[in-house]
């Protein structure tokens, strides 16, 4: 039966894979994917620790963390879309300014 150590080791491995992606990928979408992987590793940690303690605090923290990861994806992808749109537009003095 898997113990807490197994889950923590798995979490460290997934976090390392995400860290490698953050350090090496140059595409912004891939960077966001790697950040999501790192957040996922933290959530595995929280759930494993909470379940091992025998209370639900880990699950509550995980749900709040998932919400925060969703916020980061929303903001990051909207900024990416804005950058993509700005790169496709012709460069003149008026249209190249980013309108918020």
């Amino acid at each position, binding site marked *: 039966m*898997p*113990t*807490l*150590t*197994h*889950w*923590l*080791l*798995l979490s*460290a*491995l*997934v976090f*390392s*894979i*995400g*860290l*490698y*992606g953050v*350090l*090496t*990928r*140059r*595409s912004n*979408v*891939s960077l*966001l*994917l*790697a950040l*999501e*992987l790192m957040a*996922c590793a933290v*959530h*595995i940690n929280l*759930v*494993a620790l909470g*379940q*091992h303690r*025998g*209370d*639900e605090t*880990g*699950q*509550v923290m*995980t*749900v*709040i963390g*998932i919400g*925060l990861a*969703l*916020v980061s*994806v*929303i*903001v990051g*992808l*909207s900024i*990416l*879309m*804005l950058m*993509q749109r700005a790169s496709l537009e012709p460069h003149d003095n008026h249209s190249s300014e980013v309108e*918020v």
Partner: protein
Amino acid sequence: MVTFAVVSGLICIGSIQALRSQDALRGTLWLGLTFIVVALAYASMDALFAAGAQGLICAGVVSLLFLRVGTLMPRVSSSETVAKPQRRIAALATTGVFCLLAASAIVTGDIPQSEPFVHQGTYSASLERIGHLLFTWHMGALDILAIILLVSAIGATAIVRKRNA
């Protein structure tokens, strides 16, 4: 133990493939698979509420958002998305050192090595305790999360709003 081996193998393969994919769409599909398997991992730990949240929000909403943006992104060559070999070697060394340090801290640390997970009764009782925790002890965090979600949704809508001609 077999379940843990299968789940951890699938999570690692999905993570690596999500980062290896040159195409954003393919990477997103691998990430979605990884999120689904992580939800199964939560379920195997009897954390059904977190598994549901992971399946619905991460595997559902986040993957759909990535898919939507991935369809809008132009295809780029591998030389534009992959770092130079020197940087990849440095990143691999950094990641390896971090992974070894974390593993040694976990193995040699003061963590109970052989105790199994505590079973917490029925799902409805667990759900009741989660609701109690969310709306009493962690009410402030939930409020702040709701405000941040609302502000980010409004901000994202304002950012991607089409400009008037």
